[in-house]
C-alpha cells in the first residue's frame, strides 16, 4: 500500500511536470534569448514575443530575424537554444547526441537532430505541448458532455423528472424547430457570421421556439397532463447507438478529408468519441449515490432536486470520475500520437512525439529519434494508467 502511494505521487509529479513543460515550453527551448543586452538596451525577446502575439506591444526596432547572428553585449539563452521545426543546416543529416556537432559557441543538440538538423529535444518539448492540449482538451470535452448526461440519467432515472406533456413536448420539439429556423432563416436575414453572434442567435431560437410551443400546447387540455421525462432511456439509447460506431476507423476517415488539420479539432473529435465512457460510469455512480441516506435526508429537508444533484450528489461522484478520466487522458494522448505517427489530422509542420517516431522509420539507425519520444509517451501513458487504476 505504502509503495503504491509512492508510485502514485511519482505519476502525479510526472504529469504535473509535463503540464509545466507544456506551459513554459517557450522558455525552455527557443531560438531567441530570454534576456539580452544590445547596445545598452535590455531586451526580453521571449516575453516580448507573447506581447506581440497578443497585440499588446510593438516589435523591437530594428526587427531581429536571426538572434544567433546578433552580437549582444551579453545574453541569457534558454537551456535549449533551438526551436522545434527550425532546421540547422550545419548539423543536418541525423547527428547523433554523441557524435561531433558543429554548433560553435551555442549549446549542443543534446538529443541529436533529424535529417534537416532540427533539434530533437526542442521537438520533444513542442510535442509535450501538443500532447497536453489534446489530452486535456479531449478530457474536458468528454466531461462536458458526459457529466450532465450521465448525471441526469443516473440521478433522475425515468420517473423523477416530472412536468406537463406540454412542457416536455414544447421544449423538445419547439426548441429544435426554433434552432432550425434561426439557422436557415434568421442567420441570412441578419447577415451574421461571427461565432458568438451565431451562437447567441441559435440560443434565442431555442428559447423563443420552446416558449412559443409550450404556450400553444397549453391550450389543449390533454397536453396539460403530467408526464415524466424518460431521461435514463434517452441517454442509454444514445450510448447504445454511439458504441456501435467504430470510433477509430471513423476518426481516420474524418481527419483524412479535412483540408486544414489542427490539433484543436483532433482534441474535439477524440473528446466527442469518448463521452460515453464518462456518461456510463457516472450514471452507475449516481444510481449508487441516489439511494444513500443523506440524499433522502436532503430531500426531506426540502432542498430542491436540482440543487441536491449539483451541490450534494455530483461532488460526491467527482472523485471516481476524475480517476476514470485519467485513463481517458492516457488514451487520448496515445490516440494523438497514433494519428500523428500516421500523419493524419495534425498539421504537417507541427512537431509531435508521434511525428518524430514516424520520422525515425525512414532512418532506422537514428536510434535517438525512436527512443526518446517513445519513452516520454510510454511514461505518460503509464502515469495516467497508474492514476486511473481502480483499487
Amino acid at each position, binding site marked *: 500500500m505504502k509503495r503504491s502511494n509512492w508510485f502514485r505521487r511519482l505519476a502525479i509529479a510526472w504529469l504535473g511536470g509535463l503540464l509545466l513543460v507544456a506551459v513554459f515550453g517557450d522558455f525552455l527551448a527557443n531560438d531567441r534569448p530570454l534576456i539580452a543586452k544590445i547596445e545598452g538596451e535590455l531586451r526580453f525577446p521571449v516575453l516580448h514575443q507573447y506581447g506581440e502575439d497578443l497585440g499588446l506591444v510593438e516589435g523591437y526596432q530594428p526587427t531581429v530575424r536571426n538572434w544567433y547572428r546578433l552580437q549582444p553585449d551579453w545574453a541569457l539563452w534558454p537551456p535549449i537554444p533551438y526551436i522545434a521545426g527550425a532546421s540547422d543546416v550545419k548539423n543536418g543529416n541525423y547527428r547523433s547526441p554523441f557524435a561531433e556537432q558543429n554548433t560553435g559557441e551555442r549549446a549542443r543538440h543534446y538529443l541529436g537532430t533529424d535529417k534537416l538538423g532540427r533539434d530533437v529535444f526542442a521537438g520533444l518539448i513542442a510535442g509535450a505541448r501538443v500532447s497536453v492540449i489534446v489530452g486535456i482538451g479531449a478530457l474536458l470535452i468528454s466531461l462536458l458532455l458526459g457529466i450532465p448526461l450521465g448525471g441526469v440519467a443516473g440521478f433522475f432515472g425515468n420517473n423523477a423528472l416530472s412536468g406537463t406533456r406540454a412542457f416536455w413536448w414544447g421544449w423538445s420539439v419547439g426548441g429544435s424547430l426554433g434552432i432550425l429556423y434561426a439557422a436557415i*432563416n434568421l442567420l441570412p436575414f441578419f447577415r451574421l457570421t461571427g461565432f458568438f453572434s451565431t451562437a447567441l442567435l441559435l440560443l434565442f431560437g431555442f428559447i423563443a421556439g420552446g416558449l412559443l410551443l409550450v404556450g400553444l400546447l397549453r391550450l389543449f387540455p390533454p397536453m396539460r397532463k403530467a408526464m415524466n421525462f424518460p431521461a435514463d432511456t434517452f441517454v442509454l439509447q444514445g450510448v447504445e447507438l454511439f458504441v456501435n460506431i*467504430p470510433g477509430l476507423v471513423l476518426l481516420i476517415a474524418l481527419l483524412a478529408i479535412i483540408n486544414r488539420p489542427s490539433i484543436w479539432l483532433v482534441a474535439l473529435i477524440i473528446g466527442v468519441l469518448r463521452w460515453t465512457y464518462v456518461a456510463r460510469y457516472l450514471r452507475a455512480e449516481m444510481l449508487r449515490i441516489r439511494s444513500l441516506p443523506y440524499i433522502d435526508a436532503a430531500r426531506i429537508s426540502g432542498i430542491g432536486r436540482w440543487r441536491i444533484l449539483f451541490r450534494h450528489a455530483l461532488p460526491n461522484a467527482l472523485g471516481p470520475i476524475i480517476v476514470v478520466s485519467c485513463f481517458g487522458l492516457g488514451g487520448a494522448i496515445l490516440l494523438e500520437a497514433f494519428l500523428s505517427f500516421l500523419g493524419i489530422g495534425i498539421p504537417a509542420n507541427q512537431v509531435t512525439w508521434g511525428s518524430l517516431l514516424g520520422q525515425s522509420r525512414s532512418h532506422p539507425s537514428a536510434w535517438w529519434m525512436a527512443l526518446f519520444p517513445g519513452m516520454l509517451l510510454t511514461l505518460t501513458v503509464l502515469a495516467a*494508467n497508474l492514476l486511473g487504476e481502480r483499487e
Partner: protein
Amino acid sequence: MARYVLRRILLLPLSLFLLSLVCFGLRQITPGDQVISLMSKDEARLANDNPAGFDLAYHRAAQTLGLDRPTFYFSIYNGALPDTLHRITRAQERAMLRTFTLRSGNWPGVQQYYHELKRLAYRVENDPAITPVIRRLLIQDNFENAATSLQRLTGRPETAALQEAFDRLQSRDRAVTLLLPAFSWHGTDNQYHHWAGKLLSGDFGSSLVDRRPVATKIRAAAGVTILINGLALLLVYLISIPLGLYTAGSRGSWFDRLTTVGLFILFGVPSFWLATLLTNYFTTPAFNMDFFPSMGLGELPEGASWWTTLRIRASHLFLPVVCMAYPSWAYVTRHLRRSAVHELNQAYIKTARLKGLSRSTILWRHVLRNASFPIITLLGGIFPALLAGSVLIERIFNLPGMGQLLYTSAIERDWPVVITLVLLNGILTAFGLLIADLGYRLADPRIRLSSPQNAAT
C-alpha cells in the same frame, strides 16, 4: 434472452442507418470534384475553348453519377431559395447561387445575374479582358470579391446588363422573403436512396483510384488481416489464460508480483513504438541485427513445399503478430488475474478445497468459468479491432491487409472504399458487442441483459 437479442438486432439497422448517414455526409463534404475525374480528357479540355460544350458534357457526366437528383428524401431550406437548385450540377456554381440568394433574398435577380454571366461566358469570340473574369465570377461565392471583380469591367458595353443585374442584388427590399422557411418532399428519387439501395444490393461501387470493384479489393485484403488477427488471438489465449490463472493461484509470490508489474508496464508501452523499435533494430541492417526479413509477406518461390511456405510466412509474420497480440495479452492476463483472485476468496472455493479437489481442478474447472469476463470482452472486441488495430501494424510492417487499405484509401480520398470499410466495421462492432453480451450470459446466467451496462469495458 430471446427478447434481448431481438431488441439488439432491431436496433442494429437504426445504428447502421445513422452510420450510413454519417458516411453519406462525409462523402458530400469531401473536397474535390468527382465528376471531372469521370469525364474523358477530351471533354475536360473543352473547358477553355467551348464552355457551352463543356457544361453539357459535365451535366451528362453528373447525370450518370446521379448528382442531378436532390440529396435526401426531403429538404428544409430558406424560402428565398428555389426548390430545384439541385439541378445545377456544378457544386461551385450552386454555392454561388445559394450565397447570393441568401444575401439578397432576390432569387429572380440572382437568376438574371446568372444568365447574364452564362451568356457572356458562352460567347464564341474570346475576349481576354472579359472572359476569364466572367468564368471566375461564375464560381465566386463571395459577394464583396465579386463586386471588386465587376468594378474592373465598368464602362464596357457588353457587361452593362450584368452590372445592372448585380447592382439590383445590392438592395435589401426583397430581404423579407428570407424569413420564410420552406419544406419539400422529394420522394425516393434522391441521391441517398439510390446510394443506399446499391449498397444493400451488394454493389459497393468501384474504387476512384484504380477503378477495381470495392468488394474485390476488400476481399483480397481481408485474408491477411484475418490471418494476423487470428494468430494474435490464438497467442493471446494460449499465453494469458494459463498465466492469469497461475498468478492468481500463487498470488503474493515473487513470480506473481513480478508478472503483475511487468504486465502493467507492458500494457502501457504503445504497440506502435515497440513495433517501430523492432522494425528499426531487427529488420534493417542499421545495427547489424537484421534477424528478421524486412517488410511485407515475403515472396514464395515457384512450387515451394509446405515447409518452405511455412518458414517464409512465419518469419515474416512473427513480429507483426507479437506486436498485435501483446497489448491484449497484458490486458486479458491482468483482468483475468484480478477476477480470479476475487473468485478464489469466495466460499465455494473453500468448499471445493474441503472436498479434496486438486488446485488445478479448482482453477480450471471452477474459477475460470466465473472469471472469464475479460476473455469474453476481448472476443467481442476482436471484430472491430480487426480493422482498427491492424491499421498501425499493417502500416509499420507493410502488410497488404484491410488496415493498410483503409489508410491508403483515406489518404487518397477514395470514398467508395473508405465508406465500405467504415460500414463493414460498424456491422462488425455491433455484432461483436452482441456476441460478447451473449457470452457473458452463457458464463453467468444470472446476468440480466437489459441495459448496455453489461457491455461495459
